[in-house]
């Protein structure tokens, strides 16, 4: 049984003036446990919507969306989402942020201290436990967000362009970091990005989503072994694969443009 079973999901947003936007239509995907899936597609294709649905923060309009065999009916500690803007709790220190999940679960203070120690080490933030988020750099904040999510031991980690607001070098470093952390923790990851290179580098399978309405256009199996080294991104196989993915997405962008021209 797949961990996430998405079958013909449709998501419509009503904008209040009788105009409806179909964000996702006929969207189907199976995600196996421990898989690292990336989702790419032109902007506005409903990638983020899909994550919000799986996180239980939005409701599907129709179709079937199962997590671990059960329909998703609301947010749950088993599916934790990490946003692009980190969304740390600014009034809590690094340690305070990391222990939030265990704290609301009612885990004892002593055990929480241990958890904090483990995850601070995992994301390499030793010595920063008592800092507040505003005292940290963007990359460090995103590490805290990752630690906070993992400290909850979720079955599924949802990441919505988590490295989108980092500078290029930090971003590369964080990708390597994320793979190292994932190798250690091995939870299932659904990772939305608009960087094709990032997507190919990180994932087991790469899902290209078409735009308006969003549906799965093609799924690529990424053949590179693990653990992966950053060096592979210059290999011919990698470049060829990235180019193929890019071609598909560009097709979508052009398609969208044509529609826009018609409407004018």
């Amino acid at each position, binding site marked *: 049984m797949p961990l996430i079973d998405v079958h013909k999901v449709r998501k419509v947003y009503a904008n209040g003036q009788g105009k409806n936007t179909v964000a996702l239509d006929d969207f189907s995907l199976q995600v196996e446990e421990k898989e690292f899936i990336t989702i790419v597609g032109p902007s506005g294709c409903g990638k983020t919507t899909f994550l919000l649905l799986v*996180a*239980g*923060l939005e409701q599907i309009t129709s179709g079937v969306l199962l997590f671990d065999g059960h329909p998703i009916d*609301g*947010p*749950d*500690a088993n*599916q*934790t*989402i990490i*946003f692009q*803007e980190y*969304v740390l*709790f*600014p*009034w809590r220190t690094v340690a305070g942020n990391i222990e*939030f*999940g265990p*704290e*609301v*679960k009612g885990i004892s203070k002593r055990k929480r201290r241990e958890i904090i120690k483990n995850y601070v080490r995992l994301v390499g933030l030793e010595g920063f436990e008592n800092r*507040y*988020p*505003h*005292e940290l750099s963007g990359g460090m904040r995103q590490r805290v967000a990752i630690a*906070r*999510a993992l400290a*909850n031991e979720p079955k599924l980690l*949802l990441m919505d362009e988590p490295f989108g607001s980092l500078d290029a070098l930090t971003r590369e470093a964080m990708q390597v970091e994320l793979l190292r952390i994932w190798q250690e923790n091995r939870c299932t990851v659904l990772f939305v990005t608009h960087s094709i290179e990032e997507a190919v580098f990180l994932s087991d399978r790469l899902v290209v989503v078409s735009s308006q309405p969003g549906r799965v256009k093609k799924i690529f199996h990424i053949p590179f072994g693990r653990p992966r080294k950053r060096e592979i991104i210059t290999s011919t196989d990698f470049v060829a694969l990235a180019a193929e993915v890019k071609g598909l997405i560009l097709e979508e962008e052009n398609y969208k443009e044509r529609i826009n021209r018609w409407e004018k």
Partner: protein
Amino acid sequence: MKKGNVLSLISFFGVWEVVGQWQLVDPLFLPAPTVILAEAWKLTCSGELFTHISVSLYRAGMGYGLGALIGVGLGVIVGWSRRLEEYVDPLIEMIRPISPIALLPLMILWFGMGNSSKVIIIFKASLFPILLNTIAGVKGVDIKLIQAAKTLGANQRQVFCKIILPASLPMVLTGLRISTALAMLAIVGVEMLAAESGLGYLLVEAERVFDTPKMFVGLLVLGILGYLWDRLVRFAQNRILLWHRQTTLEGEI
């Protein structure tokens, strides 16, 4: 205090003193600061000033405390529940513009001339900034913070206690600070109109016998009290909101 602060105060009172000493203005209208200080010293020694201050502070403190308690409590509930806001909003907007002083006759009718009528007026004066700021603070909490908490497993009650409350605290404290000034304004008005004690009463009494220095003492004390009260709230604000101060413009100043 910064250098500019001191300089500004010294030059202000310096010019005033010169005007008073040379009697450029009739001392009946404008006594010199030293004369006022002497009067203040006299009133302090006789204990009269202390009595008035403590009575005023008691009334203002009670009313303000009540306003803070109910303002924050009600504000949090109203901000949290969209349904309730529909019911409460018209009432708030109708009662809010009524001057606190305008309620005085009715309050005297209901509660008599004692302290309770005054406390109620101060309560009315300080309630609304606290209430409205709290409502706005709660409603303004970033939805993403709530979503993040929920996906980390927080239930509704935990979202409320661990997210909504701390996230709205900056706004709540701003409301508390605005209200200190309003409470001070209202207490004087009320005491001038209907009281036998308090700083407002001191002012009216001084006016009746043309005791201008005494009037100035009253004003001076009001200024100082208001300043100290604001400082106190601001101090608390800075202590509690260390995290907030440094992420906002306030930290830059």
